[in-house]
């Protein structure tokens, strides 16, 4: 049984339909990538999965249960965490406060305190900056904050939308190293990444989306080596 099963979903904004039937599967322990050109609807898939946009047709199953159109709070409770595209922090709060708000749905506990420490172990940069306001962090630090925040939910599935967008090469490598570490630890991840070639390298499976429709799918390697996809999306 797949952890996440998206079957033929349709969704959009107002009268505009952006997703015209998208299907995906993610098995526990896998890293799965969605790639596709700008405006293909990748972020829209995440927003719809996460209950921020209504599913107009089709359904979403998570861990064997129908979760179509459940609100974000309910999905968080089920173990789905979402790191949206772009910089998403509470700018006037400190790093530590941002992290703790990430665990808003969890009660305060000694265990949570230990996990906050573990996030700092994963991202030492954040420990140094723990008393800084999030607005004063660099783009890379903010991205790490967002990933750490999601990890505090101990998610069964993490949705990562463009985690390296606009980051310097050194930070880019750092983020990828962390994603690979998470993967080794068994973290299930569904991600969208602008550097498709790099994402496919670490993906068990991948979907190519175009104009709100599934275009291709296959193992990370198969997609990476597919001649048409190379030409169309990998720019080589």
């Amino acid at each position, binding site marked *: 049984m797949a952890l996440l099963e998206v079957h033929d979903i349709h969704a959009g904004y107002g009268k505009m339909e952006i997703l015209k039937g998208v299907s995906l599967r993610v098995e526990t322990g896998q890293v799965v990538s969605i790639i596709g050109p700008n405006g293909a609807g990748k972020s829209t898939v995440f927003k719809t999965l996460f209950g921020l946009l209504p599913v107009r047709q089709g359904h979403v199953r998570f861990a064997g249960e129908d979760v179509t159109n459940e609100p*974000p*709070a309910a999905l*968080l409770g089920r173990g789905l965490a*979402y790191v*949206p595209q772009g910089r998403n922090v509470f700018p006037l709060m400190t790093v530590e406060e941002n992290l703790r*708000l990430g665990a808003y*749905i969890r009660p305060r506990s000694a265990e949570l305190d230990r996990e906050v420490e573990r996030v700092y172990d994963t991202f030492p940069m954040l420990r140094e900056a723990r008393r800084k306001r999030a607005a004063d962090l660099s783009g890379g630090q903010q991205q790490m904050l967002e990933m750490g*925040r999601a990890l505090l939910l101990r998610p069964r599935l993490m949705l990562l939308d463009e985690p390296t967008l606009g980051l310097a090469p050194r930070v880019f490598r750092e983020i990828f190293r962390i994603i690979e570490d998470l993967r080794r630890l068994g973290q299930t991840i569904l991600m969208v990444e602008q550097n498709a070639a790099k994402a496919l390298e670490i993906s068990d499976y991948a979907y190519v989306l175009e104009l709100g429709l599934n275009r291709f799918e296959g193992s990370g390697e198969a997609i990476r080596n597919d001649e048409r996809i190379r030409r169309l999306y990998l720019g080589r």
Partner: protein
Amino acid sequence: MTDFIQLLVAGISIGSIYAMTAIGFVLLWQTSNTINFAQGEFVVLPAFAMVLFLTVFRWPFAAALLATVLVSTLLLGFLVKEVLVARLLEAGVLPLVIATIGLSLLIRYSLQYFWTPLALPFPPVFSRVPIRLGTIVLSWEELMNVLLVGIVIGALQLFITRTKLGWAMQAVAQNRTLATVLGIDVSRLVTLTFVLNAALAAVAAILIAPVYLVKYDIGIGLGLKAFYAAIIGGFNQIRGALLGGLLVGVVETLAAAYLSSQFRDAFALVILIAVLLLKPEGIWGVKEEWSS
């Protein structure tokens, strides 16, 4: 010198009431993007309610106070949120602004038409016996206003910075979408903010009624001063609204005594323009380049 100290205390006293009104106004803006142009009427309505319970029904003071806060939070908190804000929030800032202007007119002229166009006297809440400190004469009213407002704002500050719900409120204020993504019930927090604002307005009403008398149109000036105070202090900060409110109260009181009492209400505007010219984001404001 004696005069000056007395005026200063009077200014702080009236300013603390402006501040409380301004803080509610800022909270509404922060969590629900509502620029409440009915804020003045949000104070006037509970003042009339208080007159009703106290002098018409002849209830004891405590009962009247409780009933006033209850009426205010139900009508101006829950009802306004559910009927107006819940529907218009999605449509952006402007429809809500227009709706609150409509609401202010509705409250103001309903009170005039259905109740009275006259000023109603309001029984003093505190003893009228003056306090003498050497040559300085102060009133209980002034001191108690400052004390009560201090307690209310202190409690509010504790709530916002020390409780999980308060943190959630700050979260919604700083990034609404992210708050939703983290499982915070934004709609519930908007309701909470409206209820808090209505409670603040009710307290402000009871404190200001003995100073201004209760008349249907006193909300115009009061709402404007709260608005100025919020801008002067920095629209997105509670302590900014506090500072702005005190500043407006003190400056207008001093200026009315030493410069011209005719232009009393203009001095708030003078400070406002000065601040806008020198520091457009407000004295303690943060530039809102960050709102996403």
